[in-house]
């Protein structure tokens, strides 16, 4: 009952990512340019951290995320990480909340939440593109 009802309010794509999230965690130290981006607050119900490692060829070598949020938020982090891993920076710059909404068939109530995922991704990209917070190890 409760499960069936909860499951009906999320798309199969959200449930699949929620059940088997990809790239969750933190990046281990090591080579390459790592950028970390954070967005949201616990009080607002969504807090996201995204980390990117950019290789010498300008591709995203590795991605990791942590999130405090609802199933749709967690799914959006997982989907985004999978979507951008191994892709050139130029392509990743174009990825945003509307892609997450489309790919995960998010209900309107969840749209605001994935904007926080986009913000964290942007902040991580800023860190690797502009460099001030990015660090070369």
């Amino acid at each position, binding site marked *: 009952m409760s499960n069936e009802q909860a499951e009906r309010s999320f798309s199969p794509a959200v449930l699949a990512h929620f059940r088997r999230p990809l790239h969750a965690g933190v990046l281990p130290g090591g080579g390459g340019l790592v950028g970390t981006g954070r967005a949201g607050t616990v*009080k607002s119900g969504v807090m996201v951290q995204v980390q990117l490692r950019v290789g010498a060829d300008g591709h995203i070598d590795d991605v990791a995320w942590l*999130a*405090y949020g609802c199933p749709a938020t967690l799914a959006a982090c997982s989907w985004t990480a999978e979507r951008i891993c191994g892709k050139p920076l130029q392509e990743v710059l174009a990825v945003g909340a509307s892609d997450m909404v489309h790919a995960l068939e998010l209900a309107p109530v969840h749209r605001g939440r994935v904007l926080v995922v986009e913000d964290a991704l942007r902040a991580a990209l800023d860190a690797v593109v502009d460099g001030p917070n990015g660090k070369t190890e």
Partner: protein
Amino acid sequence: MSAETAPIYLDYAATTPLAPEVLEAMLPWMRHQVGFGNPSSSGHAYGREAAAAVEHARRQVAALIAADADGVVFTSGATEADNLAILGAVRFAMARGRGRHVVSSRTEHSAVLGACERLRREGAEITLLQPDRSGRIHVEQVGEALRDDTVLVSIMHANNETGVLQDVAALARLLRPHPAVLHVDAAQSAGRCPIRVRDWGIDLLSISAHKLYGPKGIGALWVRPRPRLRLEPLQYGGGQERGYRPGTLPVHQIVGLGEACRLALQDLTRESARLHTLRARLRGGLEALGSVRIHGDGDMAPHIVSASFPCVHGEALSLELGGLALSAGSACSSARPGPSHVLRAMGLPDSLASSTFRFSIGRWTSAEQVDEAVAAVANALERLQPLSPLAARWRDGEPLDALHEY
């Protein structure tokens, strides 16, 4: 919902299944040829038989709460009983210029708070006491809030979200020299905790059948008969229930409530001890998970554990805990979503209130089910915590309470 996929029912504080004995007791009063009489029809056997059944049930209800049977007024449930008590007592007093001040608390059920809010708009003054962090109202707080024009004090016995018990016997003692009447919402405690209306000196007490294995849609307000406590009724009609609550009595429902009270009283000591043991097992099992906060301590009802899981989001945990039928703390006793007023009053941040779950156990809960529930929560946390930036901070030594200040 098939039997194999049915979640473990841990929501006895929301409602209880009908006891088979109660159903059996009710059936004859719904049959075509007998048992359908109107208890007000004293001129024939059909009516007299129904009236006798109602009076029998009245005594069963009174026995459970150790009160005089002629004080029992049947209502549609505890919501109506609360409204009749609060609106009835205060409107009666206000109409006669006897005062207009009410003392209640921030952790009351919305039936009580809603009635108080209504009275405020009718010109009453309402003082809502703030509980301490464990959810308790201290007798001295009530003493300090009392005024010469206080006409009613309404404090619940067991809280429906946390199970925290208030010392209503001490409250009644405090009020003995004061003209204010004491109303107690005992919807959660009746049948689970001993209640002694006569000995304690309670004036008005609400109960609900569906919280004690009786049918939905029936409850009672006990109204002190001697000296007679007068109430302004909520509705007008044929004078049934001494005019407090007119309307043809639903005999089958009343018989069900009576039988439920009889069963509850018969098993009270044993069942309450069994539930206390199960509750301790549940509470201990959850506490052992580490990243959990249990709400309320001291004197507690035997059937409720309210727990917050600070590191993970309530909706994610809720989806993961689909095998358990629980109430989420964010949308507890009402259809209204949003943070619980009870947990807020106890000082919990809203984001933490949304990761709060009420586990409530009852007659058909087994130790195995409790263990399964704890294991389900352990699995859910084990899976979700590695995704959470808060869990990492908690493992690094940050206190649980601080995590929800970001």
